[in-house]
């Protein structure tokens, strides 16, 4: 009883503190004067798929889930790991057993303590075939013991290699040493979920009137396809240091409409439409921002049996890759500060040393000369056979512009005839996934800040390897990297092999470009995964 009263006093004090401390006060760290109103409103392209941590699969849903729920670890503004519900962790000698120590003051929004059992429940739930989570494979990717068998329905979920030693100690057993395991627990799939509430409300548990969450915010309103609102959770352990009171996500499909509404002051953040960055930057220098993202834009050759014979010749693959002037694409077509890509993995990826791939260092004129030479050697071009193929992309104006520019470059420099073909998104995925193409567009964003999230695509066994590139050396280097303490040398080596064999044509690495209110502070521009948390943001008084 006494204990209960104590808890109540503490949370009451926390509430009062929260309510008074920052109202037009100063930021605890920077000392900057804070704005009176701390409401962050941003645009999302599409309605989120779910706010259930084990079900969510899209970016906009994950953004909401990161505010509503808190996992073992969080990321700071630079993408480094910082404590979340866990204060610290210990790892066994062999790197295959992790123990997370949980903080005692973490609470659910209904006041219940957050315990190791909540994580066990959530992780088992993610793997359980009955949940049918589209992200259940993530449990397998984390190499948790018995994960694969549970997903396949061969073992009950209770057999998963995760255990609550006591309320505040979570033990995870892995099938193989995984040095980057702690990085993986910042992902929404691993966030705890409230067993009691899920059992009581079933599929309805994520509705605002039912949901109970343990993050800095609570879901207070959800009008599908229009808005979702999250407000401070007074039970959150670090509520005292949270400044933003309310975050509103508005669904606005059209980016130009969103920009108009941003300009009208209805939004604090929106994406900059393609090609408008330079003019917006000139007009609003303090609001237009661009920063690197963990994403690559590329074209993949079909190297399977159904692919064209010409692409089996490495000289053709190289020649086509060399003849693309990436600076033209980046500076004249996209105009958003994107980076020309000569490797598949973006240079911004943590622990990745960009290798000195030979064609990156050449001037475009040198590359063009080399391309002509290689093409002639392969027997195509003037005096030889004429190379013709289809290049496939999903219907979009931006993709079309890039494909047009690329095919023009090939035509002028190499006399190659590339026919543009576009397909609606799902048809495109189906076609590409069945190797029913010659050259196809691809884009990939890292799931986590580590090069393997990109390079796994060229593993011969990967389901994402639509070009069916296969190289034993690459497979071996990747397998080694999974268990190595410092795999960066392997990644560099794989990129070197890729630049020599050119299974894909890297085009550019993405940037995020936003219009952001001038007084919005702490946006994690250096977090290449763009994992942001409302609790870290604030508005300065202007």
């Amino acid at each position, binding site marked *: 009883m006494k204990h209960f009263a104590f808890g109540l006093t503490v949370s009451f004090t926390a509430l009062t503190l929260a309510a008074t401390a920052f109202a037009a006060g100063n930021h605890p760290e920077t000392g900057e004067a804070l704005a009176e109103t701390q409401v962050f409103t941003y645009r999302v392209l*599409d*309605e989120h*798929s*779910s*706010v*259930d941590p084990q*079900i969510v*699969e899209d970016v906009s849903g994950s953004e909401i889930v990161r505010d509503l729920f808190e996992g073992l670890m969080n990321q700071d503004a630079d993408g480094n790991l910082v404590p979340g519900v866990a204060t610290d962790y210990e790892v066994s000698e062999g790197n295959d057993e992790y123990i997370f120590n949980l903080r005692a003051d973490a609470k659910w929004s209904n006041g219940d303590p957050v315990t190791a059992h909540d994580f066990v429940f959530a992780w088992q739930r993610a793997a359980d*075939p*009955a949940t*049918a*989570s*589209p992200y*259940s*494979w993530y449990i*397998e990717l984390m190499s948790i013991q018995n994960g694969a068998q549970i*997903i*396949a*329905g061969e073992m009950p979920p209770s057999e998963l290699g995760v255990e609550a030693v006591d309320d505040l100690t979570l033990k995870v057993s892995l099938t193989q040493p995984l040095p980057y395991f702690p990085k993986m627990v910042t992902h929404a799939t691993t966030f705890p979920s409230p067993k009691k509430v899920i059992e009581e409300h079933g*599929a309805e548990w*994520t*509705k605002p009137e039912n949901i109970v969450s343990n993050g800095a915010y609570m879901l207070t309103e959800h*009008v*599908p*396809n*229009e*808005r979702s609102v999250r407000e401070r959770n007074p039970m959150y352990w670090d509520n005292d240091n949270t400044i933003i009171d309310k975050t509103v996500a*508005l*669904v*606005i*499909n*059209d980016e*130009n*409409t969103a920009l*108009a*509404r941003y*300009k*009208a002051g*209805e939004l604090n953040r929106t994406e900059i439409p393609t090609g408008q960055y330079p003019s917006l930057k000139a007009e609003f220098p303090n609001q237009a921002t661009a920063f690197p993202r963990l994403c690559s834009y590329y074209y993949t050759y079909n190297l399977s049996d159904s692919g064209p014979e010409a692409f089996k010749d490495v000289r053709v693959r190289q020649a086509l890759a060399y003849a693309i002037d990436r600076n033209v694409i980046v500076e004249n077509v996209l105009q958003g500060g994107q980076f020309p890509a000569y490797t598949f993995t973006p240079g911004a990826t943590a622990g990745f040393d960009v290798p000195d791939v030979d064609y990156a260092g050449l001037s475009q004129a040198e590359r063009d000369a080399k391309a002509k030479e290689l093409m002639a050697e392969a027997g195509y071009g003037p005096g030889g056979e004429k190379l013709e193929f289809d290049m496939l992309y999903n219907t979009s104006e931006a993709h079309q512009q890039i494909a047009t520019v690329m095919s023009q470059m090939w035509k002028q420099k190499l006399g190659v005839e590339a026919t543009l073909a576009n397909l*609606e*998104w*799902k*048809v495109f*995925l*189906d*076609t590409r*996934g069945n190797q029913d193409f010659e050259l196809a567009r691809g*884009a*990939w964003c890292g799931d986590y800040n580590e090069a393997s999230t990109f390079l796994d695509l060229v593993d011969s066994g990967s*389901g*994402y390897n639509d070009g069916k590139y296969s190289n034993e050396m690459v497979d071996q280097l990747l397998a080694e990297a999974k268990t190595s303490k410092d795999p960066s040398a392997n990644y560099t080596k794989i990129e070197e092999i890729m630049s020599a064999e050119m299974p894909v044509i890297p085009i550019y690495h993405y940037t995020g470009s936003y219009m952001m209110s001038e007084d919005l502070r702490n946006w994690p521009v250096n977090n290449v995964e763009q994992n942001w948390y409302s609790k870290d943001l604030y508005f300065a008084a202007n």
Partner: protein
Amino acid sequence: MINFILRRLAIAIPTLLLLIVITFVLMYSAPGGPFTSERPLPPQVLANIEAKYGLNQPLWRQIVTYIWGIVTEFDFGPSFQYKDRTVNDVIAQGFPVTLTYGFLSFIVAVAVGVTLGVVAAIRQNTLIDYLAVGTSIGAQVLPNFVMAPILVLTFTLWLGWLPGGGWEGGKIEYLILPVIALSTSYMASIARITRSSMLEVLNSNFIRTARAKGIPERQIIIGHALKPSLLPVISYLGPTFVAMITGSVVIDVYFSTGGIGQMFVNSALSRDYSVMMGVTILMGGLTITFNLIVDILYAWIDPKIRL
């Protein structure tokens, strides 16, 4: 009349069933499925998900289960894309939105369109006629996807009078721009149809007779000419009404109203089979209903038509 209505209702049920089956088959024959994504799911994970949504059953069985669910429990199934919600949730949230702005647009379009058309007809070949025809042609050639951004630019960015989008439960300031954008081109069509049909009626024998009898012009127009001249308008209004209350993709996308129009397109693009079916049945049902209402109205206005 009662017989007629019953007969039409009896035809409506097989029509709807046929609609369901055709939509189902078309939907499933499109390449890709609801769970096709840039990150293809591992086969085991995909199998688990397909089992949950019953997609591992043969097609005929899925159709039968689907129809059975609707008939017995009015259950249109879970949304494949919005995993926290059912199709009933999706429609219950989106349809009132489109119904609101669609109905208001309809009223505006009919009121303004008919007035413009009548005024133009009785003042044929005068400045008023030219203005009315000019306005309506202008409104018709300006598609709403051009109209919407222009409205936002003018009223939100330059004048700052109205919000550029959102719904907020249908507050009046959020309704004005969508209603203008949606009603304009319909209004123009209604005006043109009314004008030409009015002109035809005004030149007909019974109107000449009425004039010869010395009946005041106002009474001729309102009492004698208006009703018959509205017949073509009414046959146009049936499908138009359904089109308007089931929303417009353009309006939903430009004004972020959260209505059902965009869901129709989104669900097709994302292969959200259940939402696509739900919205199709809703639209199909409404179309059948309003075609029936138009037929009844016809009989009431034109005694020559016996049902």
